[in-house]
């Protein structure tokens, strides 16, 4: 991972009606990473992207992209930034290839048919290059949006809810494409409220709610800090207490001694290993069980906890 490619300090946005969409956002994005910005609807994700890309006038704060203040060096910054908005927004009656050429030209790049072909092929759109966009399926239209954003070879790409409303197959297809972009050295910031997406794709995760960044960390570090494994052993006969041989495991007895519950791990696989050990040694120690259920805590649990915690803090 390289140094900072984007540095946001104290960014605020209050809309005319008084709604505070961003309430002092500080965020640094490193070159080459995939950063997932998680947050519920109305959290400020799209406003934050809009402020960086020039769609929204921030009320306060600063944005530096590629080391330059975007308010002053906006032309230089925008040449290197690509944006795929959430909504499908283009001239539906135009041809695919023409729209992609248009985007490349608008960002100041010289015509390059080979590059246009490369972009369209990478998104499986080459065969549809002469089709009117309105004739394409929803998934293909979304790919056209990505092709337009990639036409000028951006170094920093924003994907606002890239898989919102698309089916599972297309979502996985989109993830593969995002992965290919990362391999090509593009820094990607994606907003999503699909935790699975962040878990699958991101190097780092930020959680935003009510215009505030609640947490930013490496995805693995978050899982290590807050990840948990939970295993329920349904016992054949009830236990009065936990045998001393298992005292070093984080175990509790529930349901009148009929259920032995493990709650531990740190998101690194430790929990799974300990549950496997337990499963083997319990039988050896004469503790018979008739069922075993295990569950790993996900980013979703962490996300819900953080959002709820934030709400409680604000209420207090």
């Amino acid at each position, binding site marked *: 991972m390289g140094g900072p490619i984007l540095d946001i300090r104290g960014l605020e946005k209050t809309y005319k009606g008084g709604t505070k969409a961003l309430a002092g956002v500080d965020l640094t994005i490193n070159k080459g990473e995939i950063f997932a910005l998680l947050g519920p609807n109305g959290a400020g994700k799209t406003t934050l992207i809009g402020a960086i890309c020039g769609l929204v006038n921030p009320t306060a704060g600063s944005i530096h992209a590629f080391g330059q203040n975007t308010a002053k060096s906006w032309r230089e910054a925008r040449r290197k930034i690509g944006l795929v908005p959430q909504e499908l927004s283009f001239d539906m009656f*135009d041809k695919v290839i023409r729209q992609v050429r248009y985007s490349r*030209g608008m960002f100041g790049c010289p015509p390059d048919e080979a590059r246009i072909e490369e972009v369209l092929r990478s998104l499986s759109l080459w065969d549809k290059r002469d089709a009117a966009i309105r004739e394409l399926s929803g998934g293909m239209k979304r790919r056209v949006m990505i092709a*337009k954003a990639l036409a000028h070879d951006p170094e920093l790409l924003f994907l606002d809810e890239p898989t919102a409303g698309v089916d599972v197959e297309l979502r996985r297809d989109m993830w593969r494409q995002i992965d290919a972009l990362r391999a090509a050295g593009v820094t990607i910031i994606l907003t999503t409220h699909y935790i699975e997406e962040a878990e699958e794709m991101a190097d780092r995760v930020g959680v935003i709610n009510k215009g505030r960044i609640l947490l930013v960390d490496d995805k693995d570090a978050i899982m290590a800090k807050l990840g948990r494994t939970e295993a329920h052993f349904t016992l054949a006969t009830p236990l009065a207490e936990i045998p001393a041989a298992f005292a070093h495991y984080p175990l509790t007895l529930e349901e009148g001694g009929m259920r032995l519950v493990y709650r531990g791990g740190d998101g690194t696989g430790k929990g799974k290993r300990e549950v496997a050990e337990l499963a083997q040694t319990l039988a050896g120690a004469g503790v018979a069980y008739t069922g075993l259920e295990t569950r790993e805590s996900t980013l979703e649990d962490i996300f819900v906890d953080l959002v709820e915690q934030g709400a409680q803090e604000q209420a207090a």
Partner: protein
Amino acid sequence: MMNWRGATAILKNELARFFRTAFGSILSPVLTTSLYIVVFGAAIGGQMDPSQFGGASYGAFIVPGLIMLTLLSESTSNASFGIYMPKFTGAIYELLSAPVGVAETIFGFVGAAALKSLIISAIILITARVFVDYEIAHPVLAVGYVVMVAASFALFGFIIGLWADGFEKLQIVPLLILMPLTFLGGTFYSVQMLAEPWRTVAQFNPIFYLINGLRWTFTGSSDVPIGVAFGFTLAFLVLCVAVIAWIFRTGWRLRE
């Protein structure tokens, strides 16, 4: 430094949109203007006294007015529609996030709108020749003046397109203001034919100066001094550029 590639990309895109619907875009104004020339110029015009129109036939007298009618309505509606559509579909995001500023946007959107109306006006001028025998006394000035008017009203249309938040507003100014003012501005008559107070009232109509400016380049005579008509058009052009520059600086109706 100006992003020329961006500016020409917008211009080409707008022209491509025009040529995609070229049949309807060109045929409709050509047909309407031809009907005006046939009905007013050929049918009714034969009954008019040429001395009232500086010795020219009535058909030749109304040609500059009809060209102006087309120029004003086409430049305004092309530009207003051109910028309103991306606002309506959301595609404006690309323009706002691209390295293009006010100069590139004006060059692209306004340039394309003006060019389209000039193409249609040229076709109408050629079509008019089929029905009417007119002369152009000052062809170079006529071209310069027509280009200036097309650019001014394309800028004006661009402002309307930014201001409009619905298709209805897009139509209000061209239909309820420009069209009546053009008809009352001397397209079909000379103000010398009007009795007072209407002769004086007509001089408060800005379109009156535009029509007479163009008429002067055709016939060499008009109801107003040519300098006034040119000065008025230039002042309007500068005002529109200033308004658009302000819009881009503040983000009014563009950025949230």
